[in-house]
């Protein structure tokens, strides 16, 4: 293999549609419809409908099909760690530990390896494969929680908070705001692992993806639609809904609900209070500050590119670690998706 003479930014380029691997002629997580897309995971800001051709893990493709139906274009499923050639670029997918099916896209060309990690986390998640460290020359990372104030505590303590509150307020419904993909199923799975075997009630908007996870072999136990339960049945029960529904009319069906939100943002009290949260649960599908630094160190890349989030602090910290780091200033990725 020839030695790389080209700078990595000359062949992995930032374009208005997103990150473009020029010799391979494909985009990674394009924010506008393109000819060929490689999609890291199923969150709506990374996986969008309308591309001609999509390559992703079988899990991600199943999620996209559930969300967009036939609108996702022609598909090509690629398992983890199964390299292929795309127009002379070697491409493979490594687990990212973010949500079911989530992957890091690894691209190699002329002896240079770039890892586009998408969104990722480093801790255990019963609903997806754990993150794998892929040593590389350039590591492209998110920085959603790119400030040293973000340390996600162990999940078990957060789940305990819910269970403790249930014993303290057995007459009140416990409404947990969760994102429909990933967080919802992870919170349910964590509750199950802690021994909670009551039915868990869900908002209709969460049902399809929960069913898909179950189909793909993730145990979620007895799930019921909250809309089909009486107010009395919901006393002392756990109810999951998308975050926006908790402050809306939908929540009026619940008996005196305690509002919880499961999100990494809950670490900051003011932020949780502004959202009217009574029971903040610091459960995140993104790397916290320590995990970001641990990963930057682990992949041993000499260059760090930051896609979205709080870039400046992470770039500064990577600089202190002796890395060349820069912001890609990609637009279209949401901060709040968590």
């Amino acid at each position, binding site marked *: 293999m020839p030695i790389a003479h080209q700078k990595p930014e000359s062949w992995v380029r930032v374009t208005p549609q997103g990150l473009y691997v020029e010799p391979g002629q494909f985009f990674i997580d394009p924010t506008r419809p393109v000819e060929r897309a490689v999609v890291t995971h199923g969150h709506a800001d990374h996986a969008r409908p309308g591309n001609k051709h999509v390559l992703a893990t079988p899990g991600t493709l199943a999620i996209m099909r559930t969300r967009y139906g036939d609108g996702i274009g022609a598909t090509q499923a690629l398992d983890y760690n199964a390299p292929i050639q795309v127009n002379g670029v070697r491409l493979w997918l490594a687990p990212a530990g973010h949500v079911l099916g989530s992957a890091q896209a690894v691209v190699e060309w002329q002896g240079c390896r770039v890892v586009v990690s998408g969104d990722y986390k480093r801790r255990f998640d019963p609903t997806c494969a754990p993150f794998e460290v892929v040593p590389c020359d350039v590591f492209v990372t998110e920085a959603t929680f790119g400030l040293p104030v973000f340390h996600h505590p162990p999940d078990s303590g957060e789940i305990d908070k819910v269970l403790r509150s249930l014993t303290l307020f057995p007459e009140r419904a416990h409404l947990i705001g969760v994102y429909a993909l990933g967080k919802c199923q992870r919170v349910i799975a964590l509750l199950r692992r802690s021994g909670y075997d009551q039915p868990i009630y869900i908002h209709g908007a969460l049902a399809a993806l929960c069913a898909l996870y179950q189909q793909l072999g993730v145990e979620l136990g007895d799930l019921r639609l909250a809309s089909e339960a009486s107010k009395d049945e919901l006393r002392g029960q756990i109810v999951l809904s998308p975050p926006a529904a908790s*402050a809306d009319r939908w929540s009026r069906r619940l008996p005196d609900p305690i509002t919880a939100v499961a999100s990494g943002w809950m670490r900051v009290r003011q932020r949780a209070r502004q959202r009217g949260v009574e029971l903040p649960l610091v459960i995140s599908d993104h790397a916290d500050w320590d995990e970001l630094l641990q990963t930057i160190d682990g992949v041993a890349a000499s260059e760090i590119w930051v896609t979205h989030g709080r870039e400046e602090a992470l770039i500064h910290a990577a600089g202190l670690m002796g890395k060349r780091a820069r912001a890609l200033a990609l637009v279209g990725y949401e901060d709040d998706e968590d």
Partner: protein
Amino acid sequence: MIPFSRLIDALVFMPSRNGKLRLLGQYFATTQDPDRGWALAALTGNLDLPTAKPAMIRELARTRVDADLLGWSYDYVGDFAETIALIWPPKPTNRAPPTLGEVVADITGAKRSETPAIVEAWLDACSADQRFALLKLITGGMRIGVSARMAKTALAEWAGKDVNEIEEVWHGLEPPYAELFEWLEGTGERPDPDHHAAFRPLMLANPLEAADIAALNAADYRAEWKWDGIRVQLVGKARELGTFERRIYSRSGDEVTRVFPEIVGLMNFDAVLDGEMLVLRDGEVMPFNELQQRLNRKIVTAKMLSQYPAFVRLYDILADNGEDLRRLSFDERRARLEAWYARMHPDRMDLSPMVPFTDWAELTAMREASRENGIEGLMLKRGDSTYVPGRPKGPWFKWKRGALTLDCVMMYAQRGHGKRSSFYSDYTFGCWRPAEQGGLELVPVGKAYSGFTDEELLRIDRWVRAHTTNRFGPVREVEQELVMELAFDSVHPSTRHKSGVAMRFPRVHRIRWDKPANEADHLETLEKLIVS
């Protein structure tokens, strides 16, 4: 530190007052002395650790965290104690988190130069939540939505006492309040407050509804004006060599002594007086918002003293030279008050005059005629009423002047809090005024979030959702169509409001589903109601 940090965390997120009281009560019941006493001191603003200041903590953080990262983090979090609590990278230690007792003892016992090392070791031993509680505790200013009064109320509920009993002994006590807890738990004597110039909990009046009057016998009641200032209690206590301890309390028992130095300076007496603090110029009572200028400021300047001179109009006397007068009747106390006043003749004080009347019709007419400045209405007090703390039913009534009303148009709606958080229950209202480009425009004149029933709220909420034209975070702008009649006590000029006026105590009086918005009132009408 562990129970205290759990308490702080739970309080921060507990929206309801009852829930907060329950959490506090639980804490007092299950925590040891002296920790619970120091916690009580911190919650009531009585804990002062002068060597542990934010600047010292910031220096400490700099030794562990890169300055830029610290700066960005503070910008994001916004609260100093929370930033340090979250960002602190602890070094491994086998020390346990300190107890509150240790924190107070070690800091007060240390030299200023020794404090940083002590605090550093604690920060290492604590979790993030405990660090937050520790930093709030030692740097002062908890600001977690618990007032001193609420802490005392929780204490009272836990101990099965009336909060006024606690207020009564409170000012004689010092943290960590061992005597107080002994008394509350029934293992000690009631602390004796009379060593100090202690606060006597106030007697308050119930509102009088027009319909109630017929049932009352006019001859049993005395009437006086209800002045529109702040209710205060002046307490003077003789010390040796002809000096006096002097304190001024607000009606909740908070000390406001420092706010009114010109009054304090004149309190050379051994007595407890009940009165109304007012701003008086050339013998005339000024509108309430002039007094507000005094209350809003931390430092009293010479200019404020001359611009907003304070004055106390006396209602009652509760103690005279150590003699407790509260068991006397109102008529007897009034006689004692008049005698006291004739004897002392203090500057900047006078007696609130009695309003003689023979029957209710006469009094009603007087009340209606009184649009005079500084008068909120009438007080009715039974001549035979003893001075009972709290708000007993029957002996005292406040009979406010009829409210003013105005038809206003809803402009914005905002979600409420707690049980109302799924409803749009807080509204901003406007009145019409001529627009610069011609025609009329609405200008906001006030906010109201009470005065309607649950069913009405449901209907308004539905209306808001169906008539939203714009959203700003939790606020919705609505079509300018819904008219409500607002009631309010008075109107004052205001530089803080775009309309130039501010209503006092606005509330929704009636919802005018029937009324077209263009028939709502004009700003001009409101301006004419200004009391000057």
